[in-house]
């Protein structure tokens, strides 16, 4: 077993690139703030997505230049958007009916912790004592598929993949794929468990295990993360 140098961890853009391989033509996608937002830069050729935003817009387009910002055209992160053909606007009740009613094919979210069963904790940092839930719980429960895109370890170097979340939960058993800067796990099976399917260059299953605070099974077809 070799634990690679921390420098061998993947960049945020590469995590996003790997997640973007999960996009299917025609998917309705909601991207969280942070690494998830970057995924839109790496949509595979031939794939057209409909982006949904909780701010009340479907098929929203790229960011506007700051100087062209229209206060009546923002995304869920408060960024100004360009108008694009085929958009539609609606109120918050409709925006969340779309999420909660199972109409979002895929959401990509950041996380503070993900458990081996796919429990997600991403809204409340106990040290702050107060937090913003925003639409996180609605998305985690309502989207057909939830992918977590995050760094594998937190700033203290502790694993963000854990046996049981110690931070307050966003939703139980909701995550189906975890893409980090060292590995890709599926959350699968009747009892829901982690299944290591890909590793970053220079990493192997043992090395991933040494930085992961949860048990996982290793795919017979374990391979290096493919980005194309």
């Amino acid at each position, binding site marked *: 077993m070799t634990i690679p140098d921390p420098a061998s961890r993947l960049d945020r853009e590469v995590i996003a690139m790997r997640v973007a391989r999960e996009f299917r033509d025609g998917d309705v996608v909601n991207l969280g*703030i942070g690494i998830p937002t970057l995924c839109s830069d790496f949509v595979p050729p031939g794939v057209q997505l409909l982006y949904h*935003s*909780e*701010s*009340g*817009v479907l098929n929203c387009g790229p960011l506007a230049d*700051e*100087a062209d*910002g*229209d*206060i*009546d*055209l*923002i995304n869920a*992160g*408060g*960024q*100004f958007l360009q108008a694009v053909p085929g958009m539609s*606007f*609606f*109120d*918050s*009740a409709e925006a*969340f009916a779309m*999420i*909660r009613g199972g109409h979002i094919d895929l959401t990509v979210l950041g996380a503070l912790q993900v458990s081996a069963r796919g429990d997600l904790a991403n809204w*409340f*940092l106990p040290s*702050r*004592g*107060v*937090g*913003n*839930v*925003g*639409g*996180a*719980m*609605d998305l985690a*429960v*309502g989207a057909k598929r939830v992918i977590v895109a995050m760094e594998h370890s937190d700033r203290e170097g502790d694993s963000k993949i854990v046996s049981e979340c110690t931070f*307050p*939960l*966003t*939703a*139980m058993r909701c995550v189906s794929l975890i893409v980090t800067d060292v590995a890709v796990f599926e959350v699968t099976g009747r009892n829901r468990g982690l299944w290591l399917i890909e590793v970053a260059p220079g990493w192997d299953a043992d090395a991933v295990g040494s930085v992961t605070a949860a048990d996982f099974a290793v795919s017979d077809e374990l391979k290096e993360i493919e980005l194309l």
Partner: protein
Amino acid sequence: MPIDKTVPTFEEAVADIPDGATVFIGGFGGAGGMPHRLMLALRDLGSKSLTIAGNTAGIAVPTGFGWPAGEEPIDHAILVENGQIAKVIASFPVSGSVSRKNAFELAFERGEIELEVVPQGTLVERMRAAGAGIPAFYTPTGAGTDLAAGKETREFDGIECVLETALRADFALIRGAVADRLGNITYSGTSRSFNVAMAAAAEITISEVDEIVEPGEIDPERVDTPAIYVDRVVARGAQGKGSR
């Protein structure tokens, strides 16, 4: 008499909001769809011990969330800093940045304001339920989390759901783009946000708009908040569309 819900000034529009009232404040978080002038008037009125409900409790200064570059937001902070708020009900009550706290978070740390955090979708659905005569509904959102603590739960199709109740207010302060004198309101772009659900869920709904026109000047296909939900409309006049 022809129905005319126009109120000439922001001061008159909010004059009867008493101490202890529950007040919805519209918008999503950015400048669009946020009733700035009504909030300023409520600040000047000075009503105390208010419960305010909406998506945020104000944003940090200056985080830029949905605000034109360099502009200092006029938002919930002006009420918080004036000591008028007893309780906040919101999904996004604090700044997105741990290091740049908003006025609410500082007051919360001092123990001056009570907080109820509600998932954004549940929050707007609770308002929508109030407007639609639904006293309570079940949702899987929040099940098994701290935000469902103490709430009734029940399984539907094997999925644990939480019983959530309608959320009403005494007053809704909302903002539209154009109103007619009957109280029909149309919005622009993403500024519908919480305004639509709030309009139907308050006893008295007061809308700030860029412009007030005669009935018939708004396309009936473009009315997003029909007049039935609106009690007073007040025009921003020279300010028109804008963030101040």
